[in-house]
């Protein structure tokens, strides 16, 4: 890691201005929430403290806890098996287990409810063969938990997979030589080493669940985000929305606070500088078949079933005369927003990363926290706050794609910033200095030295932001100009009215378009690991 070893006194003015504008944009949703709550009259507080809202908060928390637990129970063993056993085709399994990332939760929700829901495909089949006419309703907590767990476990899987392969194998061997068997070594040595990534990954999944709008709305499970959206659609007084949002933000901040407490207390550095032998993989032996069955079931439920469902609805739609041409316009709109957002977000995040890493200001810590806005704020809230500023202060951009792109930037910024910081930290300032000594102009240093060094990091950032923005739903629903539809909004509106066949083509397009950045991402990660 290369921290600010060659402090320059002040950053260039263009970087400072860009950082200032970025921070201002990130602050907007927070300012909005506080303004609204500050203005709220007491009746709003009475309504807010009524039982129904408390109930919604509890429902959100319950979903969050369930999804976090299930994803952990799925991801930890899967990642362990993938990395540390002699699993045949382990690379193929790793790709298959990561692929559900490209399926947006609302697509998952729509497919699951169309297959497993009342009058769904499964019920048709069961009633045809066995005469079973009623199935338990999948909507509600069950459906939301199922969809969110199956589609968000890959995040945790990827995080754990990388930290499991980074565990120093001599720690495990030392424990064995000190008299501990495999199971006790796992409990006493490996698990404590994995704790930070388990906590960070679970934190990510909890915040992801808390801010999810697509799955809970289609599964009709009333959580805070769904409540905010309904309030936004139905009433003029926005104070109540702000109060609910504030609760959501406070929960998110509380979770992050707990995580950082855990992280500060524990110690997980790699000690010593020597190399450790490549770890030995365990032979699965008689467990090979049960492991294959478990892996197969997870891949079936999280990947094959949703994709198969999409194909089924697509073909059924085509036979019943569904149009396909409208999809091109949606693809164009989605790509337009996603590409522009990716470029802007990555550019802004690189500027911010340079500022944070290379210049040591007291405010840096706070700036970093503010940049996390998109991490703690669900899309619904970011969108509503931008509507407020759009209408009241910059009417010109209200109801334009600009405002939508700004919202997408706020939401994707934390992911891009984390990545850009890692990229800048990896570049030794001495390399910059020696390049400057060898070359006359700084522009050639940027083009021939810095950009090639940052290439795989930049590709990772661009791909991640693209993936997130492609799937983004609530901000687009609220901020999209009149008549402006993306793949995401079109899927949601068709699916929420149970036009499953019409939703299939855009849903399949989103999956296919998301595959490209995912492939780039995996390649860039492999490269980064090699370096």
């Amino acid at each position, binding site marked *: 890691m290369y921290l600010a070893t060659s402090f320059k006194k002040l950053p260039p003015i263009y970087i400072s201005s860009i950082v200032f504008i970025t921070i201002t944009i990130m602050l907007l949703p927070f300012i909005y929430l506080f303004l609204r709550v500050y203005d709220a009259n007491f009746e709003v507080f009475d309504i807010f403290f009524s039982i129904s809202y408390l109930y919604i908060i509890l429902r959100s928390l319950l979903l969050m806890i369930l999804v976090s637990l299930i994803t952990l129970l799925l991801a930890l063993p899967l990642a362990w098996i993938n990395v540390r056993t002699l699993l045949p085709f382990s690379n193929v399994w790793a790709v298959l287990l990561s692929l559900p990332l490209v399926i947006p939760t609302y697509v998952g929700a729509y497919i699951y409810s169309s297959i497993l829901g009342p009058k769904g495909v499964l019920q048709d089949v069961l009633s045809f063969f066995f005469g079973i006419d009623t199935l338990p309703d999948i909507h509600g907590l069950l459906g939301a938990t199922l969809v969110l767990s199956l589609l968000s476990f890959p995040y945790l899987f990827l995080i754990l997979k990388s930290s499991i392969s980074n565990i120093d194998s*001599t720690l495990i061997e030392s424990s*064995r030589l000190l*008299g501990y068997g495999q199971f006790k070594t796992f409990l006493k040595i490996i698990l404590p080493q994995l704790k930070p990534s388990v906590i960070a990954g679970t934190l990510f999944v909890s915040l992801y669940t808390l801010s999810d709008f697509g799955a809970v709305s289609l599964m009709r499970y009333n959580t805070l985000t769904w409540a905010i959206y309904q309030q936004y659609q139905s009433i003029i007084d926005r104070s109540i929305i702000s109060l609910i949002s504030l609760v959501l933000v406070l929960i998110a901040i509380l979770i992050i606070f707990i995580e950082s407490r855990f992280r500060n207390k524990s110690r997980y550095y790699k000690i*010593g500088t020597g190399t*450790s032998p490549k770890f030995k993989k365990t032979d699965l032996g008689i467990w090979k078949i049960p492991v294959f069955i478990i892996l197969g079931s997870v891949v079936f439920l999280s990947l094959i079933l949703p994709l198969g469902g999409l194909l089924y609805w697509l073909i059924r739609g085509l036979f019943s005369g569904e149009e396909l041409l409208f999809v091109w316009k949606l693809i164009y709109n989605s790509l337009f927003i996603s590409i522009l957002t990716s470029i802007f977000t990555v550019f802004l995040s690189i500027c911010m990363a340079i500022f944070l890493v290379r210049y040591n200001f007291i405010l840096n810590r706070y700036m970093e926290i503010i940049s996390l806005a998109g991490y703690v704020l669900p899309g619904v809230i970011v969108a509503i706050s931008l509507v407020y500023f759009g209408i009241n202060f910059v009417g010109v951009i209200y109801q334009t794609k600009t405002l939508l792109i700004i919202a997408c930037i706020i939401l994707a910024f934390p992911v891009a910033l984390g990545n850009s910081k890692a990229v800048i930290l990896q570049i030794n300032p001495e390399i910059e200095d020696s390049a400057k000594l060898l070359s006359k102009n700084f522009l050639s240093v940027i083009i021939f030295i810095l950009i090639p060094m940052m290439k795989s990091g930049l590709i990772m950032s661009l791909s991640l932001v693209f993936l997130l923005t492609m799937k983004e739903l609530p901000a687009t629903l609220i901020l999209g100009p009149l008549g402006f539809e993306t793949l995401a909004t079109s899927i949601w509106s068709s699916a929420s009215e149970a036009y499953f066949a019409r939703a299939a083509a855009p849903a399949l397009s989103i999956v296919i378009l998301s595959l490209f950045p995912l492939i780039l991402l995996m390649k860039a990660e492999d490269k980064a690991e090699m370096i």
Partner: protein
Amino acid sequence: MSLVLNCMNLSKSFGKYNVINNLDFQLFSGQILSILGSSGCGKTTLLRLISGLEELDNGEIYINDKLVSKTGVHERPEKRNIGMVFQNYSLFPHMNVFNNIAFGLKNLDKNDKENRVNEVLEITRLGDFANRYPQELSGGQQQRVAIARTLAPRPTIMLLDEPFSNLDAFTRSAMLTDIQKIIRDSKVSTILVTHDREEAFATSDYLAIMVNGNIEQFDKPDRVVKYPINQDVASLVLNCGFVEGTIKNGVLTTILGNFSFKTMELNNNIENDKKDVNVLIRPEDFNIAYDPNGNFKVLSIEFRGMYSMVQVQSINHGFELKFINNDKDKLWTIGSNVNLIKANTNPLIVYSRN
């Protein structure tokens, strides 16, 4: 002294690579054995076979007369009572020094555990650091914790895998003395693996020289240095060079002159027949003398404090040799022509040239 470790005919290969080839050796109680070999010669693999972290292809390993490894027999590492200090020390980062050391004492009750940890802390002079975490210690201290943790459960044998390779030169020389004292005080039978001859000489009762998965020579360090059994061993244990020579009628002829010689090979008819040999030249074997018509040229002079190491090159044959020089009033310098004069009457060691 009883036999604690008996390795018979060990073989191990990874895929196509034979890492250990029919290797035999024994270790007696309380002995310190250093295994010296270049990188990749199979030293670490040998330790991993003894500790049970790898399974054997062929051969047998006995610890205290008990068979622990053989084809089809493999006692698990946690059952062998063997301690190992890894190259990177492998301290548990989430435990403080006390808990790291206590980790292997799970069978003791609380009081006994505390007493034993304190005892080991004292031997390793770590008493003040019991509550520190590994990352708060220096490299040398981390190494002492690793050794303390290994010693605590009183292992039958302690294995040290390149224990000094991560230390800076200054700490390393201090630790060499330190570790030797700790091992002697605790009376544990020890095998130390290294690629550094100074480390191997400094710490051991016996020295095993390992080349390509086999032990070429097993003897006391001074004997190995005095009589290296073949050219590979000589290159590993000495800072030496070789010149070509011929033996005829019991006389060794080289371009440096005619000398008395000693052969390390068992079939001694070499002394009578005409035979081509390589002659071992040690840095202390010859003096350098200024001679404008000399057959050698001085290439470099490295000042080493107590002496200088001088590199000379044969003008006609191109080979290079290194010699120690203490002559303060020398007439030659870099680029001078010089001649080499035998500094003592010791016979030169020769190896037959194949």
